[in-house]
């Protein structure tokens, strides 16, 4: 049986940061393939480069060398403008600190990515309501972030991430700022999105219990990716 091509294919990626005259290597010759429908957890200590790798996969940062293909598109060759358009369609983002816009309601926050599409006001409303129903917050759509708990804010952020129906969700420490109960709710939700909606999820975490929810765990250490993936979830 012919094996299906991976959704994300990273080949020989190098990335370093510059601090004055110093060059600090962060990622060294990283190669990685992520299958469609995968739920991958990237683990590693602080400074290991896991968030940098996530940013590169999500086209938030640029490689020094190497290539990253997502859905067959070499995103390392796209311009800033093309990358912005690509991100709007293909990637949903979940951040540690939720990153909701405080002056917008939950509804308006979720609507933000849809404003870049050609959808009518009515169509946008329909999409937003569905996304908020998925995260079980339809009743809180008129609330501002400050009126929501941390867990609820993160669920709004997840609704914002899925409202455009992207092929991939990237999450950077999505439970890092949450209490245990809220963290469990968020992870349950992500698991459901992966299993029921077949969303490919790449999650950075340093919490082993969060990583256990993923299907595959990869470890980064000092810029190098361990070759052997761990099978987390049964």
């Amino acid at each position, binding site marked *: 049986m012919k094996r299906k091509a991976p959704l994300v294919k990273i080949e020989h990626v190098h990335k370093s940061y510059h601090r004055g005259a110093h060059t600090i290597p962060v990622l060294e010759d990283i190669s990685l393939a992520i299958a469609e429908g995968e739920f991958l957890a990237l683990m590693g200590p602080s400074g290991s480069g896991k968030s940098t790798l996530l940013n590169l996969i999500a086209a938030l*940062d640029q490689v020094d060398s190497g290539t990253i293909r997502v859905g067959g598109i070499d995103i390392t060759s796209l311009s800033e403008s093309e990358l*912005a*358009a690509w991100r709007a369609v293909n990637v949903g983002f979940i*951040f540690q600190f939720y990153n909701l*816009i*405080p*002056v917008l309601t939950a509804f308006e926050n979720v609507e933000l*990515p849809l404003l870049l599409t050609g959808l009518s006001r009515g169509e946008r409303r329909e999409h937003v309501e569905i996304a908020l129903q998925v995260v079980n917050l339809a009743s809180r759509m008129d609330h501002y972030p400050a009126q929501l708990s941390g867990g609820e804010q993160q669920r709004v952020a997840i609704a914002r991430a899925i409202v455009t129906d992207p092929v991939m969700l990237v999450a950077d420490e999505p439970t890092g700022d949450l209490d245990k109960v809220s963290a469990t709710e968020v992870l349950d939700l992500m698991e459901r999105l992966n299993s029921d909606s077949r969303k490919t999820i790449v999650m950075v975490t340093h919490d082993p219990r969060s990583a256990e929810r993923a299907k595959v765990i990869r470890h980064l250490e000092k810029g190098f990716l361990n070759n052997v993936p761990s099978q987390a979830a049964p």
Partner: protein
Amino acid sequence: MYLLKLLLRNAFRHKLRTSLTILSITIAILAFGLLRTFINAWYAGAEASSASRLVTRNAISLIFPLPLAYKDKIRQIDGVRLVAGGRWFAGIYIDEKNFFANYAIDAKNYLALYPEFTFPPDQKAAFLADRRGCCAGRKLIEKYRWKIGDIITLKGTLYPGTWGFVLRGIYDGRDASTDERLFFFHWDYLNESLKKIGSSRTDQMGWYVVEVQDPNRAAEVAQAIDRTFKNSLAETLTETERAFFLSFVSMAGAIIVAIQLVSFVVIIIIIAVTANTMAMTARERIGEYAVFKTLGYRGWRIAGMIIGESLVITMIGCLFGIALTPPAAKVFSKIVGTYFRAFQVDMATIYIDIGTAMLVGLFAAIVPTWRAVKIRIADGLRRIG
């Protein structure tokens, strides 16, 4: 609509800071508007001048008189319709602080030359019929609460003595720019009084106002008048009424330049204040802009948010400033009394206020926009938390 809602909410995220910035802009626009109105008031005489009127004066200086005999000679020059003489009296009403311009005029012709001074017909007739009569503009009347028939006494400075006049007429300005602070009486009365005391200053005029038949020939007629009196004891300088007024304005040129400089300083100050607010705003929200970029918002949309917010703040301040300028001008006008013929905020000042506020909004947003648009998403996201 969505963008406007976002701009307004963002603008008032820090209510105190935004309110103080708006207050600064309001005060600056108010000051700018008043300074512009002040400069305009200086030029009001020139603006109200007629293209068909010339002023002939002594070529050496306005303080030197012209012979009475020039009147008939000027009238005979081709292109001249009407001539009237006037003389600066410089009388003081009760106290020196009660300054207003007072002239001895060749009344019948002078008033015919100035149709913008409108009188009730009976008052005009009464003034012309009474040698000791005088007339004054509405602003003077209101200021000193004079009424028809009052005896108004001026203390002479150039012409010593106490001079009593009977108020016979009150004129209103036909146009908003017409000077309603003038006081006129009969030159004949002055001249006869001077004759009685044997003064050497009899039969003299300070200047002549000349009405030309065709305004297009004004320059030609002016040259003809001056040619007529060339090589005489009192050579003349004839110019349009506008040029005559502007020569007075030019005497205060340094003051006007100083006021204009202050206007520009005011603009620079509001740019600095607004730029500071926008810089703080953009620095605080750099993480949010990174989030917007993450979601697919391009640089020009981010720029639109920052510039739009800057414009919202400056335009709100501008609108308050514009709304406050006319009442402030009214108060200022009362304080300066009859010094300016008109102290009114014109539409051009309001347009300049709006244009200036828009430019301030744009300038103030340049650096914050540049930083927000150029910052790398990963760097921006690191500023959160």
